[in-house]
Structures are given as C-alpha cells and as structure tokens.
C-alpha cells in the first residue's frame, strides 16, 4: 500500500513525531511504500539542522534524514509554517525540502492512505 504521512507536532516536546517514525519504519519493513512525509504546524521543527540533543538521546532530525535516504522518501516542509517558525533553506537539515501545501494535497490524492500524526 502507498502511504502518505503528515506530521503536525515538533520534536522532543511531543510523542507524535516518534510515533510517526516508528510507524513509517514498521510500514516499510512490512513492504508498504512511503513516497512522501509532509511536515506542518510545529512539525516543521523536525527539519531544523540546528537541533542538537544530548548524545545519549535519539537524534530525531538525523534519524529522519537516514530513513529518507535509505528508502527514497520525499520529506516536504510547508513553506508558510516553516518561515513562521524560523526554518529556512540555510538551517534546513539534510534530506528535507521546503515547498507548499499543495504537496500535502497531492500526497493525499496519490496515496492509498494519508496518515496524520498530531496532537
């Protein structure tokens, strides 16, 4: 099955991004495809290259980049939500790209399911 993912909460404060990561990983292991993950609301913080957690904690941002690279996932950050929160090309982490909300609607149209992770 083709799954599109939407993530609406930020890193560390909220579990939704961890749940999304575990879901995506499990889905791919089961043979499903995840062509696109769309980051919206505080979810755009998943794409900040300035994130620097303690060494004994998971690195959420780099974890996404690795997963996306291994499985060719298009990770899109909403431009309007990103600019509001200070995420720009100059501090955009590897593996992410900034684009518009149309990418979310398009993902909803093209995927078999759109799974939303939020509050």
């Amino acid at each position, binding site marked *: 099955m083709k799954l599109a993912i939407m993530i609406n909460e930020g890193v560390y404060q909220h579990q939704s991004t961890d749940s999304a990561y575990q879901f995506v990983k499990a889905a791919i292991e089961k043979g499903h495809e995840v062509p696109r993950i769309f980051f919206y609301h505080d979810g755009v913080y998943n794409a900040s290259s300035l994130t620097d957690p303690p060494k004994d904690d998971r690195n959420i941002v780099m974890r996404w980049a690795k997963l996306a690279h291994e499985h060719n996932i298009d990770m899109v950050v909403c*431009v309007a939500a990103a600019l509001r929160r200070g995420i720009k*090309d100059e501090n955009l982490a590897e593996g992410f790209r900034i*684009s*518009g*909300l*149309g990418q979310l*609607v*398009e993902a*909803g*149209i093209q995927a078999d399911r759109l799974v939303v992770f939020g509050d």
Partner: protein
Amino acid sequence: MGEEMTESTGGIDFEDEDASGVIKKFMFVNRKAPYGTIYALESLEVVLISAAFDQDVSLIFMDDGVYQIVKGQHTKAIDVKNFSPTYRALEGYDIEKLYVEKESLDQRGLTEDDLLVDVQVMSSAEIAKIMAEQDVVISF
C-alpha cells in the same frame, strides 16, 4: 525552495504534475478553538489550497472547533488577527459542505444562529457516517 511556487497551488505546477483528474473526498476536522493555538488558522490555509485541486472538500466543526465559526469575534485585545471572515469566503472557493456537530453546540450553549456561515448541524452518529465515506480525513 522553488521560485515558480505560487500562493494558489502551493508548490505544484499543474502542467507538469499528474495530480489532476482524480477527485477524492477530503474532510478537514476542526476540533480546536480559533485562538490559543495556531491549529485553526493553519488548517484554514490547507483548506484554501485544497480548493485549487478541485477535490470534493468538506469541513467539520466539533468540540471547541465550533468556536472557530462563532459570530462576533474580537481579537484586538490579544493582538492576533481575526481570521473568522475567511470562513465566509469559502463559498467563493466552492467549499460549501460545512458540518457542525450538534452535541458540541449543545454542550457550549450555542445554536446555529450564533454561527457566521451556513452549516448543516448533525449528530455525532451522522458525522461518523459521513466520515466513514471519506478518502482523506485530516484532523486539526
């Protein structure tokens, strides 16, 4: 970020993309108060973009989300933009399916007359039925 991106299509170039043709039922579920968090405002931004894709769009207001479309919002004292007039503009984007959960209105002492747009008031059981018919449900 792409220079070619436009406000109305949110980063999609319709001539190059294969997104056209398919019409899905998109439902946006609005459950949070209009101010206090940014969910309602950013939800409305997605709704407006979805209109550009000619999809079958509907909106549901339930829980504190019903406050998003209550008449007479004044936000000057909290220095936040009052975006409630935008809900009245949805009709111009051919977004006309607006549903409100009756239980949520009742619990808050509100009636249809308190709302600034024309809506269909429905029970949660009826809303569950419509929700089950959707292709894409996005909840804010």
